[in-house]
Every structure is written in structure tokens, then in C-alpha cells.
């Protein structure tokens, strides 16, 4: 597969194995992209079909655009409630993650103390712990302290599991903030809390964006914790409602497709607006991890 032309190679000083793309290469890549997007496209056209249309012509456009599917799914699936729950839990957990994580990251990047190595080591281990191995003990523990089936049953473990990556991202970022700024503030008589709140935290905006994006995606899309820790209909998040929706309305396929379309739209809109930051955040998150 030779996708390089000598001319383009000369022109582009930067770049690695294959520099300019040939027309054939572009065609191949476009086909791959279309194939990748097809299941999503299929979801959206199916969401507007009647069940019969869905069976007979799975990949044609809808004969009649059934907008009712969406509104029926919204009502029958109590999607409004689920969306509110997801929003509430996600926002609360993101805020908690940012506050606790960046504060801890600040301490670990600026101060020397006895147990620092141990604390860092623990958070490092935390990056590697598979969440599913904690489902049973967390369930038992939360049952004991009465936390099961509350918003807290999601917010607290979400935050706890997001802390390690948040802390390491924060520590990495703090290294770029010159200590002179704090020293100057110290001379002015500011205490540490004031320095953190007034100077450090505001300087952290770029990393706050990265952390929030990573946390948002993880919390908004979480299924495992919600499945095990939430039972009440009124507390169910979007992924959990969807999984039950497909059981409850098993044969009403276009209705389930409608519910999925509703659930997917917010994430897709956010992705289209923030895709560069999401990709960058993903890279930062995984390299640290």
C-alpha cells in the first residue's frame, strides 16, 4: 500500500509514515468512516419508523416519519426523569471530583510530608483497580450504612474512582505554575486556602476542562454502578432506564429506538461542539493512566 507521492513528501516536512493521501486512500478512509457511522445513522432512521416499516425495510428511510415514537418513548420511558437524574448525579460528581481532586493534587505537588509516598502509591494503585471487582463489597457496605438506592450511592463512588486520574492530571499541570506566584502571595500575608482559592484554582482552567470532560463522559454513561446500586424507578439514570426499557417494551422496537435516540442526542451534541477537547482529554487521561 503506497499512499505517498514524492512531491507531497517534500512539501510536508512534518509527518510520519505516509504523508499525502492518494485518491484511493481517501476513498478507502471515507468508506471506513461511513461504516463506522452507519449504526448510528441506522438508529436514527429506525427511531422514526413504524414497527412494520422497521421489519420490512431496515435500511430504507422511513416511509412516514413517526415523530410520535420520540414523544411516546419520552413519556412511557419516563425519559425526562431519567435525564434529570443523570444530569444531577453527573454534575454533582463532576463538581466534587474537581474540588477534592485539584485540592489534593495541589497538596501533593507542592508540599513534602511523611506519608506522601504512601498516598501517591495508593492513588496510583487506584488507577488499575477494575471497578467490577468492587461492586459486591460496595453493595454490601452501602447496604449497611443505608446509602443504597440514593443519589449518594452514585455520586460518592463515581468521585472516588475518578480521583486518581484527576489528581495525577492536576499534579502534572501544577508543575507548570511557577512557585514565585505563591511566594509573592505569601509575602502579602495570604494563607494557603486563600492562595489556592484565589490564585491556583483559577490558573487551573485548562486542566479543569480536561478533567470535567473525562469525568462527564464516564459518569453520564456509567451503567455498572447504577445497575447494582439503584433500584427505585425515580432514581434511575439514562443508561439504566434504557436497558430496562428494552426489556419492558421488548417487541416495540421502534419505540426503543426512539428512546435510544433521545438518550444519544445530548452526548452527540456535546461531542460535536467539544470534540477537540474530548480527544485531547482522552489522550491526557490515558497517558497518565
Amino acid at each position, binding site marked *: 500500500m503506497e499512499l505517498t507521492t514524492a512531491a507531497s513528501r517534500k512539501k510536508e516536512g512534518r509527518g510520519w509514515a505516509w504523508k499525502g493521501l492518494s485518491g484511493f486512500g481517501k476513498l478507502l478512509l471515507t468508506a471506513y468512516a461511513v461504516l463506522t457511522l452507519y449504526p448510528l445513522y441506522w438508529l436514527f432512521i429506525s427511531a422514526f419508523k413504524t414497527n412494520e416499516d422497521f421489519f420490512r425495510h431496515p435500511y430504507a428511510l422511513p416511509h412516514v416519519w413517526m415523530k410520535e415514537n420520540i414523544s411516546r418513548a419520552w413519556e412511557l420511558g419516563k425519559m425526562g426523569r431519567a435525564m434529570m437524574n443523570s444530569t444531577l448525579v453527573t454534575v454533582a460528581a463532576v463538581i466534587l471530583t474537581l474540588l477534592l481532586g485539584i485540592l489534593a493534587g495541589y497538596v501533593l505537588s507542592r508540599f513534602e510530608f511523611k506519608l506522601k509516598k504512601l498516598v501517591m502509591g495508593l492513588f496510583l494503585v487506584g488507577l488499575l483497580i477494575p471497578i467490577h471487582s468492587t461492586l459486591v463489597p460496595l453493595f454490601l457496605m452501602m447496604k449497611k450504612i443505608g446509602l443504597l438506592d440514593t443519589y449518594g450511592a452514585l455520586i460518592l463512588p463515581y468521585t472516588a474512582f475518578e480521583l486518581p486520574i484527576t489528581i495525577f492530571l492536576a499534579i502534572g499541570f501544577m508543575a507548570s505554575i511557577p512557585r514565585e506566584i505563591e511566594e509573592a502571595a505569601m509575602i502579602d500575608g495570604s494563607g*494557603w486556602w486563600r492562595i489556592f482559592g484565589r490564585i491556583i484554582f483559577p490558573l487551573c482552567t485548562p486542566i479543569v476542562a480536561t478533567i470535567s470532560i473525562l469525568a462527564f463522559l464516564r459518569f453520564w454513561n456509567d451503567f455498572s454502578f447504577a445497575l447494582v446500586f439503584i433500584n427505585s424507578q425515580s432514581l434511575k439514570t439514562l443508561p439504566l432506564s434504557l436497558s430496562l426499557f428494552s426489556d419492558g417494551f421488548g417487541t416495540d422496537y421502534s419505540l426503543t429506538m426512539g428512546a435510544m435516540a433521545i438518550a444519544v442526542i445530548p452526548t452527540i451534541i456535546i461531542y460535536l461542539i467539544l470534540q477537540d477537547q474530548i480527544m485531547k482529554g482522552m489522550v491526557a487521561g490515558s497517558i497518565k493512566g
Partner: protein
Amino acid sequence: MSTALKSKGFIALALLPALILFLVFVIIPIFWSAYYGFFEWKGLGTAKFIGFGNYNEIIHDRIFWNALLNNLLLVASAIVGQIPVALLLALVLLRNSLFSKFIRSAVFMPMVLSTVVVGLIWGYIYHPQFGLANFILKEIGLGSWTRAWLSEPHINMLAITIPINWSNIGPYMVIYIAALQNIPSEIGDAAEVDGARGWRKLIYVTLPIIWSTVIVTLVLCISGSLKAFDHVIVMTNGGPAHTTELLATYMYNNTFHVYRYGYGSAVSTVIMLVSALLIAVNYAVTKRRSA
């Protein structure tokens, strides 16, 4: 920076909330499950200490070994199906042209979807009666290839790997692009002057430079395969007849469907050990390779 006492108070107060939350919800549960793994407990009444009874049962349960095998299959499928495709795409889409950006964002898109949505969409695609997969096969004259993709043993685990690969190629691609863009272009030019082109350049120049990134993505493949729980719960729930069971679904079904909390705890501990082992093996193998 002095004022030692004030600093000490700040360190404690600023670090403790994060540390306590993390210890309570992440670290302590591991010890809890190790502890409860030694008990027979139905969730009600008193727990009965049975020593290594649960572990003994686990290693004699064929379903457990099948689940472990399925997990390893997912790791293999990620390493074979995600890493090379992602690397190839990264090499081709390295330049920040409009076209590259468009393809990149299309490939990355499935990543932001919830795993439940991914599982449900693909569950419909694979549906034996009206699924898109069978429909297309019939249309192109391969009617004999149609099957119940998620029910037939041997086929169903492979069918499950496809949606997982589908949603995970994007992030690896982006990680590789970032790594490749960090290499100074002089190295590439020098390699070409020395006659390293195409595949040779990839294997002898590019790969060694980004090797640490490759290791990171391999670790992510391993931990990612242990997270495939959601897809399986939504698509097959481990069935039929436990053929698509993973360690995590095995743990889940034993704990929350038949209420064997002690047994589930023991399986949780085994999941911990397996993932630690896999990461250690990966580390040892890649270490030797780069030395």
C-alpha cells in the same frame, strides 16, 4: 516556604476529604471482598466461615474457566482488532488537514456513546429475525450465512467483540496521533535519507520511538476488556447457557441473581488477581521487547 504549623493544617484538611473518599470506596472494598470471600452468606442471617470453600468451588466450576477464557478472548481481540487498525489510521490521518479531521471525528464518535446504547444497537443489528446483519447477508445472496449471531456458541463471543472494537478504535487512534506528532520531523527525514521507507520505517524507526505509548495502550486493552461487562449484560446477559459469560458477569449473576454474596466476593477477589496478573505479564513481555 515556612510557617510549618499552618502548612501542616492545610495539608491535612486539603488532602483528607479526597483520601478518605478514595479509601472508603476504592481501597477498603478490596479487603472487604477478600474477607467475605471466606464466608458462605445469603445476604440475610449470619455468615458462615468456610475457609477456602468458595475459592475451591470457583476453580472447579467450568463456567468460571469459560468466563476467564472469554475475557482473554476479548483481550486478544482488542490487541489484534483495535491496536493495529488504530495505528494504521493514526499513520494515515496524522496531518491536520480538514479531511483527516473529519475521518478522525467519525472514527472517534462511537466512544462517547453509552455502552448500553452500543449494546442495544448491536443487539438489534444481530437480531436473528429482523437484524440488519442477516438482512444484508440475504440481500447480497449470502442467505446461508445468516444465523442467530448472539445465540450460537463459538460465534456469539466473536460477535460481541465487534461492537467493542467499534467503540474503542477511536481513542487508541487519537493516542497514537498525539504520540506520532510529538516526534520531531528531523528523525523521520533522517530515517528516509538512510533509506528507511514505508513498512521498514514503521517497524525500525517509528514503532520503537512510540513504544512506551504502545505499552500504555496494551494496558488499556487489558483493563478495557475487563470492563466489557456492560456490553454483555445488555446483549446476552452471559447466556445462552453461560457461553458469553465474563468474569464480571459471572460475579454479578452469582451475587445479585442467586444471592451468594460470599461466593460473589470471592469471584471479585479473583477478578482483582487476574487483572493484576495480566498487567504484570504485559509489563514483563513488553519490557523484554524494548530492552
